[in-house]
């Protein structure tokens, strides 16, 4: 079966920096908050990302991002971050100074 027919297709190399942008916001809460306050300012720092992708991200167009062929896991985590306030951040947290934040 060709990749394009998969529910989870192989990410296109040409979209690497679009995924990079989503990943940066996913893992960096400060950047995500900045994006919510001023998306243009954050997006302007990603010259490798094309205007179409920037519009889809700025408008939270999850279906459009899916049609674009971005990875569904990156999209759903962006969506949950926006819509549910669900932090999926993991990679930027140091594995030291551990505290249980739930109390």
């Amino acid at each position: 079966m060709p990749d394009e027919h998969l529910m989870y297709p192989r990410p296109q190399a040409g979209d690497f920096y679009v995924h990079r942008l989503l990943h940066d916001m996913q893992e960096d809460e400060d950047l995500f908050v900045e994006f919510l306050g001023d998306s243009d300012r954050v997006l302007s720092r990603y010259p490798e990302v094309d205007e179409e992708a920037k519009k889809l991200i700025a408008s939270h167009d999850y279906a459009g991002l899916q049609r674009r062929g971005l990875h569904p896991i990156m999209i759903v985590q962006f969506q949950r971050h926006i819509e549910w306030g669900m932090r999926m951040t993991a990679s930027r947290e140091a594995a030291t100074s551990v505290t249980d934040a739930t109390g």
Partner: protein
Amino acid sequence: MTTVTTDGIRSADTSHDAGVAFGYCVSHAPQIFTQPKEEDPAEIARMHDGYRAVARSVKEHNVDALIIVALDHLHNHFLNLVPQFTLFTGNPVVAQFNQRRIELNGSPELANSLMDGLLERGFDPAFSQNEVLDHSFLVPLNYMVEEGLEAPVIPLIINAYVPPQPSIRRCHDLGKAVASWAEASGKRVGIVSTGGMSHFPGTDRFGAPDVEADHRVLGWLETGDTEKLVSMSAADLDAIGMVELRTWAVSLGARGDRAQAERHSYWDSGHCGYAVIEF
């Protein structure tokens, strides 16, 4: 939505024979923790009971280490580097999701021994000494923390979502290699795999998991017909929303001839088949 339950978890084998003492497979959907109001609280509570029963059993088995097999949802393993298998060899083992963050004991000594053992058996996993694991680890490990697990934890991360992934047969073989290492090194370990069952996060099929496929696969596992699962292609798994069952295949392979499933619980939540399975 359906619920099928059987009588609890098997009693723990408290001998200290080397090898793989148990295998559990559980789901890890974030909704198990966030408990959205659309989901039946009684069913969620039943799932939590299943996780706690597994955690108690894991503790009672008195193993030298718990190997937990899950995945990375493009957090640590972004597209700049996507290893098929990654063994966490650091200490402590930390997992985080939302505001929940847990810490368990790792064992660099045992993890490095397993790493060497896998290399000797034809596998070339990557390794990591510092990685905050995501919700696929946190959901089941949370209950291990609550139950006071003292044995060290060795996380094994499978590439489930980014094609090309390892074949499910390769994951099954990886489980066999883990068992071979445990027996050869005189170590007694247990395995908990997390993932599945059918679900399609981030796609337009999110609300339409393949429940028939869940029951079909559960039927295979309950009759010990694991070959039907491990012979599935990557496209087959993708089509029924079971890319994550690669983690289950590791447990299946590790348990070998004993890999006949007992179903503790299964619930079709409407977006994911939640299961707690024992091998």
